[in-house]
């Protein structure tokens, strides 16, 4: 049995049914509960976004906290012309730029070392899902930070070109070219690895080994 008063239960139930933009409007009026609901909703999304912009989990955690605090301090500046997620991710991207200026990353972050759900093996693609996971793994290795982030915002956050451009501080044309090059590079690299894997299988019958830049040697079974 819950010990919270009925009006608080009603408040939390009404907050859960509100859109992020409505919650942000409540938070701008001073509602810490509304902002807490925003934190709970965006915690994981923001952390994963920042994990792709930084090189370490600790940095991503610090920046997640900083982003939420900055958002709370500036909540009156939020205009509902944009989605709340776009505004929040824009703050996060700018904080990441400052973070990189202060400290250069020593190691390139590798998704395979950190992932909770392991990526499927490289090799003959069994279905679209396996190929998608391989492509994300490939993206972490071969794409630049901005390309990787643009791809993440496009497919993980369902952002439009306009929204990605706002978050990254680029022009729309720049984002279009960035996405175009990222998909082209992924297609080429995936094709190369796929062919290398088949040749290696045919010759030795052993698993190919790919060396990640800045990371340990990873054996990938087929």
């Amino acid at each position, binding site marked *: 049995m819950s010990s919270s008063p009925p009006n608080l239960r009603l408040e939390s139930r009404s907050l859960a049914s509100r859109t992020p933009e409505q919650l942000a409007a409540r938070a*701008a009026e*001073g509602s*810490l509960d509304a*902002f*807490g609901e925003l*934190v*709970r909703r965006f*915690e*994981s999304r923001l*952390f*994963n976004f920042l*994990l792709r912009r930084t090189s370490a*989990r600790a940095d991503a*955690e610090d920046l*997640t*906290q900083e982003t*939420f*605090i900055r958002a*709370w*301090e*500036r*909540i*009156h500046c939020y205009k509902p012309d944009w989605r709340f997620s776009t505004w929040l991710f824009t703050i996060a991207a700018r904080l990441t730029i400052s973070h990189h200026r202060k400290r250069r990353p020593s190691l390139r972050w590798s*998704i395979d070392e*950190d*992932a*909770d*759900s392991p*990526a499927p093996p490289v090799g003959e693609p069994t279905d*679209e*899902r*396996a*190929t*998608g*996971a391989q*492509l*994300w*793994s490939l993206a972490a290795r071969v794409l630049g930070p901005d390309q990787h982030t643009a*791809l993440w915002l*496009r*497919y*993980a956050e369902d952002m*439009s*070109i306009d929204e990605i451009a706002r978050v990254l501080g680029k022009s729309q*044309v720049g984002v*279009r*070219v960035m*996405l*175009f*090059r990222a*998909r*082209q590079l*992924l*297609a*080429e690299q*995936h*094709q190369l690895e796929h062919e290398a894997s088949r040749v290696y299988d045919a010759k030795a019958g052993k698993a190919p080994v790919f060396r990640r830049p800045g990371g340990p040697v990873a054996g990938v079974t087929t």
Partner: protein
Amino acid sequence: MSEVQDAAAVTAVLDDCLPGMLGEEFAPHEAVHAALLDKHSLTWSRPPAGLSERVLLRVSLVRPERVRRWPVPLAASLLLVGGLSLLLVRLSHPTLAPQPVAPPSGPVVVVPVHAAPVVPPPDIDPGVLTRLPERSEPAFAASLERPFMGQVDAIAQDTQRGFHAVISRLPLRLSMDVLRAM
């Protein structure tokens, strides 16, 4: 087509979802796009435990910044009032700007010093220097100083008028009598 045009065409179909067909050369883009659209293929990392609680704890100690809108308009209005007052004063008492010295349009002709014989003007009184002390009476000194004193008075009046014009528009609650007495 250039890369920008290719990118615009491909992203219009794949990202803007506009109707259209892509050429055969862009089939790899479509394949990658289709694979990435699958949300289950995304590798999500779990945030550290208690992250949201730590965020909320820190947030509860921070007050949102309040918008302070009055300093900028106040400064702007003061600047505007001051500028208009000075403009009014300048318009009511125009002063002549120094005339710019026009650069010589043609080549400078250097005349030799000894080109012509130096002939002293015939009407110069050679005893003028010896009689100067006799002309140092107060009337002569006053006639020399009069134009300068007039300029000084005009400048002082301009300054005082501008000062009153600016001060009278500021919310200082000073009596104009006090200002006039200054």
